[in-house]
């Protein structure tokens, strides 16, 4: 890990963004703990995946652009994939929950 | 660090062996996977634990091996991972076929009498 001095204009916002994203994710996980039932527990982690992830990605964009002295936008792709795959996982989780609920009702 | 590493290998091996001795094909398969993890980490560890120094040469010319991690075990393990995957897939399919043919998922192809 070679130490490279990060310019101030990049480091400050990056730090803030990282802190903010981390905070959001923590809150999301906390919600996963606190909320009562499965369906409502589905919601808070989404914070981590949306805004939290977004903040982290933007931060990483800023940092790497600053390091490479040219705009780095790979992270946009990551965002794209997250946006496209998150609904699928969410839906399938919900389906599982519904299925389980049906089974419980049968018994 | 070394202690943790060794313990990790030990735990992986133990659970892998335990599963390997179970009567159900699925368990044996899982045991194989765990054992392959253990083996890979073990071989990898034979290059000693080196942090933050991947064997990627920054500047050509003067290259001192002590500046980098040992690439040889890494290469070996890389091969091992792929081969392990192949064998796992093979075992999985074989056990499915066995379960289809013999109607049981016991490794002996038939339920024990007792």
């Amino acid at each position, binding site marked *: 890990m070679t130490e490279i001095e990060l310019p101030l204009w990049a480091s400050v916002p990056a730090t803030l963004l990282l802190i903010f994203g981390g905070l959001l994710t923590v809150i999301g996980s906390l919600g996963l703990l*606190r909320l009562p039932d499965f369906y409502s527990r589905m919601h808070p982690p*989404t914070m981590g995946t949306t805004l939290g992830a977004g903040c982290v990605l933007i931060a990483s964009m800023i940092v790497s652009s600053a390091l490479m002295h040219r705009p780095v936008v790979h992270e946009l792709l990551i965002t794209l994939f997250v946006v496209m795959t998150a609904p699928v996982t*969410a839906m399938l989780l919900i389906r599982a929950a519904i299925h389980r609920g049906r089974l419980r009702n049968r018994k | 660090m070394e202690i943790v590493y060794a313990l990790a290998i030990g735990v992986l091996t133990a659970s892998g062996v335990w599963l390997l001795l179970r009567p159900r094909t699925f368990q044996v398969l899982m045991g194989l996977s765990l054992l392959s993890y253990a083996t890979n980490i073990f071989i990898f560890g034979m290059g000693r634990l080196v942090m933050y120094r991947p064997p990627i040469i920054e500047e050509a010319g003067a290259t001192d091996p002590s500046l980098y991690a040992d690439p040889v075990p890494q290469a070996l393990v890389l091969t091992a991972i792929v081969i392990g995957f192949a064998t796992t897939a093979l075992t999985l399919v074989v056990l499915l076929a066995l379960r289809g043919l013999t109607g049981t998922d016991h490794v002996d192809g038939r339920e024990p009498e007792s």
Partner: protein
Amino acid sequence: MRAPTTRRLPPMLVLGLTGMWLLLNQTLAPGQILLGFVLAVGLSWAASTLRPLQPRPRNLHVAVGLVFVVLRDIVRSNIAVARIVLGLVRDRDVRSGFLEIPLDMRDPHGLAALAAIVTATPGTVWVDLSPDGSRLTLHVLDLQDEAAWIRLIKERYERPLMRIFES
């Protein structure tokens, strides 16, 4: 919705893939552009065999607008959910529940976009789509009055999406 057998290259997909290729390689070299284009054509042809129906999005300015709307909503609902989680809503109890929304939109891509939006905004989760595609079920974390939610979904998201995909 066209028949599955005919294969016409979806232009959007080709362009998108080319752009993505350039993005990945971080270049604008003509050779790379050509390569990316060839790749994109081949891939989208392969994809069109796998996926017969193709989106034909129109008036994209609406889409741009929609993106910003959605971003704002994401930030907002994040804050809202955060407050709920941290228990900052003392004055009333949080009632979560399912919400049925009658849908006018039928285009699968529009629906997909809607699903993405709904999942991206915390507080709402896509639960189910009735087999005939007429009713959408959501689960809402903070379900105060259902009518407001339904209006929100239909006004803010469904209409622009219909303008994009179904006009």
